[in-house]
């Protein structure tokens, strides 16, 4: 078990020419905590990660690990693990050669490296594959090798840049669980950059939301989900029904949570007509035209809904959350 490092990002800015990719972001990550940095593509989350690793120069602010300012510490002396988005495996080395690279750089002797490589290949489920060439691996296997390579030197802080980004959906689901298990077992401090909220929610203790280089929110997944706070974040999280509150007697923009709405009996709630039904496996997404505008309701799949049929939407009062944050 590794002892996690404490990471402090203080008013960090990263610029490319005139563009400020990261604009004065401050964050603290406690030892052993898993923080997800979530945001749409181009929001600066990868730049932030690279700045922590020392791969991008800071235009302002400071990065401190366990209280030590890393300014002037070159990349290779920082001892921070970084897993690259496209994995960046060394094409001229086999699986074991990739995983053991950091250990060789640290001057470990051959036997210890071999033991540690075996241990890590076990951990990521690639036992006995040390001699394979990396260009013959599948996408999921490459991802596992990259993870093992990053974890091998047992860094106190691990940065994962879109760890599941290039994989197809089924594989992501499976590796997401594996990754969660591995990360939880290690005890190291982890920062995961992702554009996928499922990934962030599944893995992280807290989620930092970035937008156009600025920090929007930092909160545990549940808090973020139940109270997005701003119309932009509600939409980014895929929550429908971001509407004008006046129809419900509220001021400003409100979120009518589709997961809290239900289809009700006639006479109960808002009357409406079904204008669209979509099957999503675990739920049906039903769009209903009501006097207050069109509302989306997440209904259990067992509920029988006919297109154009008359329905009532219940639970509206409980579902309304105000979004008073700036859009």
């Amino acid at each position: 078990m590794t002892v996690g490092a404490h990471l402090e990002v203080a008013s960090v800015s990263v610029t490319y020419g005139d563009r400020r990719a990261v604009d004065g972001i401050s964050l603290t990550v406690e030892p052993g905590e898993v923080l997800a940095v979530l945001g749409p593509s181009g929001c600066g989350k990868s730049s932030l990660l690279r700045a922590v690793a020392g791969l991008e120069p800071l235009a302002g602010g400071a990065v401190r690990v366990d209280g030590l300012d890393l300014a002037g510490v070159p990349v290779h002396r920082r001892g921070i693990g970084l897993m690259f988005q496209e994995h960046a495996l060394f094409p001229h080395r086999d699986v074991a050669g990739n995983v053991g690279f950091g250990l060789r750089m640290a001057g470990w002797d051959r036997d210890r490296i071999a033991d540690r490589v075996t241990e890590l290949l076990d951990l990521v489920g690639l036992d006995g594959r040390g001699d394979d060439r990396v260009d013959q691996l599948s996408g999921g296997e490459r991802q596992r090798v990259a993870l093992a390579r990053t974890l091998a030197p047992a860094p106190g802080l691990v940065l994962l840049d879109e760890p599941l980004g290039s994989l197809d959906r089924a594989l992501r689901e499976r590796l997401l669980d594996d990754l969660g298990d591995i990360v939880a077992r290690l005890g190291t401090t982890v920062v995961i950059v992702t554009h996928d909220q499922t990934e962030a929610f599944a893995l992280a203790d807290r989620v930092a939301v970035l937008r156009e280089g600025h920090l929007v929110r930092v909160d545990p997944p549940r808090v973020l989900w139940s109270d997005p706070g701003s119309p932009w974040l509600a939409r980014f999280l895929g929550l429908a029904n971001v509407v004008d509150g006046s129809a419900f007697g509220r001021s400003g923009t409100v979120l009518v949570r589709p997961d809290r709405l239900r289809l009700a009996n006639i006479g109960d709630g808002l009357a409406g007509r079904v204008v669209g039904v979509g099957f999503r496996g675990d739920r049906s997404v039903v769009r209903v035209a009501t006097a207050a505008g069109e509302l989306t309701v997440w209904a259990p799949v067992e509920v029988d809904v006919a297109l154009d049929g008359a329905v009532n939407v219940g639970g509206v009062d409980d579902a309304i959350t105000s979004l008073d944050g700036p859009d």
Partner: protein
Amino acid sequence: MVPLGFLALFFVWPLVELFRLGLAPDGAPDLGPVVDVVTDPGLRAVLWFTVWQATVSTVLTLALALPGAWVLGRRRFRGRAVFAAVTVVPFVLPTVVVAAAFRALLDGPLDPVLPDVGGVGAILAAHVFFNLAVVIRTVGGAWSRLDPRPEQAAASLGAPPWRVAREVTLPRLAPALWASSALVFLFCATSFGVVLLLGGPGAATIEVEIHRQVLFLLDLPTGAALAVVQLVAVLALVLVQSRLADRSVRGEAPVPPEVALRSPRSRRERAAMRSAIGVTMLITAVPLLVLVERSLRVGDGYGLRWFDELDESRRGSTLFVAPTEAVLNSLVAALIATTLALIVGGLAAFARSGSSELRALDAVLLLPLGTSAVTLGVGMLLAFDTAPFDWRSRWWIVPVAQALVATPFVVRTVQPALASLRRDLHEAAAVLGASPWQVVREVDLPIVGRAFGVAAGFGFAISLGEFGATVFLARGDRPTVPVAIARFLGTPGVANVGQAFALAVILMVMTATAVLVVDRLRVPGQGVL
């Protein structure tokens, strides 16, 4: 700076000297020699022959290569990799070996069938043999990256196969077809060894005429003027070719092989595949097999006599030394040339990938490719004849010339490897604790080292077979193998021809060995063509 200095001294300066003699023979600018070249009936015939034989060769090559390109680009079959490897063989063979093979073929098995083919027919056939790989590789490669679904869509919209080919496949293949045609035309128009050794009277390209003017008529100004005309025309062609090649990069996203390739489905398709493979293999293999057969033919039987006698300096031979000495000369020259080419080409490739301003070097570096070896040879002959640069009869001028011919290939091989040193690999190594110099040792060198191996193999093969420049610079008592083969082939007599064939077989084996070693080193997906 080192590569620049080397190129300036041994390449640019000879060309400048050549231009000076061709455009200003008496110090003052004088277009007389060039005008003479273009107006003299004899020389105009040479220009005309150069153009028409290159055109006919290109059309023939294209026609005969398309079946092979189709099979390679669209069908999956057992032995596909072997087929692909075999098709390249002719292209890497030295021109003198190809000339010897076709001499063996036309004087041998084909003589009773086609007695009147003569020099021109032999030249065209040798050009097809030589350039088949260019078209099969370029067009077949482009074809295998084309998405087959537009064809399927056209068929489902009611287009019969010939209209699918004309309206969907052909337009998308056109850039590759044009690019490879331009390249083949360029190779045929600047063809030297094949034309010199197979062509009779009236069958001379500009290159061969330069050789004749300089070495036999000792008319250097006319030779220089011809070289100037040739250089300008070739540079124009190279420009056109690189434009066309650029165009083929644009457009659709390439698809992986498993999408483009499929197994044959009907008996007719299998038959078509077999004939396509058959035609390609026949063109590739027969001349070489006949060459081997002829080298073993002694009188009416077979034996190793021509090989055995290679270590003797025969009386009355056109070679002043034993042929085995030529083999040694060739090996030594090729080793030095390869080393030089690796240093110059490697440094140039590093410089080019390092900064964008040095892209200007591109033109200088690709010039040797556009400049024919003959032009280079004549230029060096001119430039290095007075003190303090009186080097033209030094033995080392031959490897220097060969290195210049091989350098562009080195650059082209090493460059992609350097480009593949992606920034994220450097970063990954640094994050894992590698210091900057460890990054170079652990990441850069291993990846680029392989490319250097490939470049060394090809450079060695090119230097071994180099003929166009060497023939002007090799001293009479220090011939290389290609020079020896040419001399034997140019002299009548059974023994001379037999030894020429034996030497050609040896040269073929040496080249093939170098290329095969290279092939094992090659990173998949990085072609040289």
